[in-house]
């Protein structure tokens, strides 16, 4: 039996869906926000270093459920195996109200103008599917500002000469410097680089009824027990609920988007928290499940008019999966670098995002969030055994005398890096699971290794006595920065959604999350997902005429 009809059903409550639900509800549309995970309270965060979204040795803390949500991973040799959320190959994204924004590090980057014009800037890169976005930085600028102010960002990017133009400074000042900051900043300046206070979606001062950051050191991968970390769960979604036009249904697993004989979506079918099948009719369907799950839902939504799934007439859904190649360097020092002050990442350079000779792109570099001892145990330099007395000596000597500098490489998208539906394996609800396959473009590896060498230079200049690089591997890219699987473009033959994030061949279905990113910037993508969600939902509101869209 169908539930009462609403104007919009939003599938997924992360960086994209949380914003969409709020903008639509505040414009007066009735909204149902479906989320497959559950609500988490700041008070239940246990800071378990073996069970979190950063180190999932024993599981993930914010979903998805380990047993109910298998996937199939196909490795570079073509061997396939069933994987679980705790395993890296799964490309896990948190599944809870707020999605990844509950437990992310909260780096709040704007992409640079060149990042929206990668094909125009660098030309074709053989073997890849490099393309420009159908929108530019100027289209995004007002919405970046909106995201920074409405969700809340601290930092100071004024010293970054490579950034795109901006009308306003960040709304909150940076946090006071840590010891790593004091070591790295002068070193960067000596190298002629341009260090600045990295932007974070964290309150550096009390704001919006929540406290300032308490500088707890275990931050990224965990929820914030003081609520100072700003995600959609404590900003946009509460605002949406306050309108009384929006309801959130947690633990709701969407099975498919239902489509009528005219080729319009009529709503979604989903399993509720008691695993009962429900149908939620809606005028609009917005898919915001993250790059892997959004593609899965489009592929699952097969019907007579759309035999290969929604938006998939030209076989683009699920392709171009890209996260970030994460490379950098480790530096061991002979004096303490550790001051026990979180959140960790605080200083960055954007000198190597573009303009690297012979390379089609680059990426930002920043000091890493504070490491867990269990993570540090696997970060031994070449020549140090991974166990035994020498390993223990390394841990004891260097845990407090160590800095890591890392950064995300903007990747060259690949047609064969993709998610599909697995023909055999089903999840707890009997729905076909995702099958991940493909590799990383050789040039992405080259760029990543270039960044690693630059990170090593910075650490050497900072006085590290031992420096060793973390270089790029050839395996499929995805993980928490997953993007690209429902490309945005003007040509329906070479993309899935248009510039307003509307699926080309079905006018009342939208994809609003990192799936639509044509390229993924040399930056953490959360703020771009949020800004684009503000932009696309504002466009929906403009075209809304009660009961449907204009035109």
């Amino acid at each position, binding site marked *: 039996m169908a539930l009462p009809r609403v104007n919009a059903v939003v599938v997924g409550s992360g960086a994209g869906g949380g914003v969409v639900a709020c903008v639509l509800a505040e414009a007066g549309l009735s909204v149902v926000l479906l989320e497959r995970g559950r609500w988490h309270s700041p008070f239940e965060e*246990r*800071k*378990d*270093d*073996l069970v979190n979204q950063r180190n999932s*040795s*024993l*599981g993930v803390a914010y979903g998805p459920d380990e047993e109910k949500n298998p996937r199939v991973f196909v490795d570079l040799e073509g061997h396939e195996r069933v994987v679980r959320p705790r395993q890296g190959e799964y490309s896990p994204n948190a599944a809870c109200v707020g999605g990844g924004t509950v437990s992310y590090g909260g780096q709040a980057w704007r992409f640079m103008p060149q990042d929206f014009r990668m094909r125009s800037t660098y030309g074709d890169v053989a073997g890849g599917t490099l393309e420009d976005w159908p929108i530019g930085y100027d289209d995004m600028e007002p919405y970046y500002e909106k995201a920074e102010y409405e969700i809340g960002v*601290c930092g100071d990017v004024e010293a970054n000469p490579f950034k795109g133009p901006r009308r306003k400074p960040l709304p*909150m*000042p*940076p*946090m*006071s*410097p840590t010891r790593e900051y004091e070591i790295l900043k002068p070193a960067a300046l000596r190298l002629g680089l341009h260090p600045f206070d990295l932007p974070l979606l964290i309150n*550096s*001062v009390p704001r919006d009824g929540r406290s*300032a*950051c*308490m*500088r*707890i*050191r*275990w931050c990224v991968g965990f929820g914030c027990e*003081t609520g100072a970390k700003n995600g959609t769960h404590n900003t946009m979604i509460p605002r949406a609920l306050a309108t009384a036009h929006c309801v959130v249904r947690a633990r709701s697993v969407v099975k498919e988007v239902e489509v009528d004989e005219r080729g319009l979506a009529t709503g979604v079918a989903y399993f509720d928290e008691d695993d009962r099948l429900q149908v939620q009719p809606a005028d609009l369907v917005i898919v915001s499940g993250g790059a892997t799950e959004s593609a899965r839902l489009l592929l699952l939504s097969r019907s007579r008019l759309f035999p290969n799934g929604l938006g998939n007439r030209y076989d683009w859904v699920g392709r171009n999966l890209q996260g970030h190649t994460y490379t950098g360097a480790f530096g061991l020092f002979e004096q303490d670098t*550790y*001051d*026990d*002050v*979180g959140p960790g990442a605080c200083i960055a350079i954007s000198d190597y995002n573009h303009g690297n000779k012979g390379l089609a792109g680059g990426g930002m570099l920043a000091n890493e969030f504070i490491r*867990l*001892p*269990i993570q*540090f*145990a*696997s970060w031994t330099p070449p020549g140090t055994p*991974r*166990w*035994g*007395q020498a*390993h*223990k000596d390394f*841990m*004891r000597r260097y*845990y*407090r005398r160590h800095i890591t500098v890392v950064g995300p490489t903007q990747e060259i998208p690949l047609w064969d890096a993709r998610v599909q539906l697995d023909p055999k394996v089903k999840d707890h609800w009997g729905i076909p699971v995702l099958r991940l396959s493909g590799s990383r473009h050789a040039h992405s590896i080259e760029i990543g290794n270039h960044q690693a060498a630059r990170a090593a230079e910075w650490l050497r200049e900072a006085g590290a006595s031992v420096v060793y690089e973390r270089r790029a591997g050839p395996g499929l890219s995805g993980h928490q920065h997953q993007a690209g699987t429902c490309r945005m473009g003007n040509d329906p033959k070479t993309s899935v959604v248009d510039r307003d994030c509307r699926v080309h061949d079905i006018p009342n279905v939208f994809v609003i999350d990192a799936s639509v990113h044509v390229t993924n910037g040399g930056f953490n993508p959360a703020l771009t997902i949020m800004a684009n969600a503000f932009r696309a939902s504002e466009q929906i509101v403009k075209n809304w005429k009660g009961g449907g869209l204009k035109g």
Partner: protein
Amino acid sequence: MDDPYAVGRRDFLKVGATAAAVTAVGCAGAPGRWRALGEAEAKTLAAACDRIVPPDADPGAAQAGVVDFIDRQLAGGQRDRREIYRQGLEALNKTARRRHGAPFADLAPDVQTELLQEVEHARVDAADWVGVEPAAFFALLVDHTMMGFYGDPRHGGNRGRASWKMVGLPDPPIRGRLHEPAKS
């Protein structure tokens, strides 16, 4: 200040006695003290873990409760690894007997280390390692020992936060350290 590990600590007192008995190898203990491991297996495991994180001025793996951590995992979330451990520990003892005429736990520490290096690089007699891949077993053992030694005490290892004290993490482990305002 409330101790965030108050519950874990009660648990720890309960199991503290068992692990202490394991380190004092050869002591007869109460039957059924382990959840998944047999008494002899626990003894072999304690000896192997102590070569991965050896005791010195700071506690080694066994004293820090790594065997208890692994035992809990094998009885809980990683039940599917029970068989790998059973076979791997048996194979380790077979190799020890073949080469040195004694079970692994009775060998001198240097000899144990050397033997584990052979297992790590799969330079062992295939007849002793039927059904279990030596390098894969050893990699799992190292992973679990690191988790048990450096991970959160709530999982049964890192007793008394031994490793966190060793690396110099201030106690208690979770707190905001800086209460000054942001720079203006």
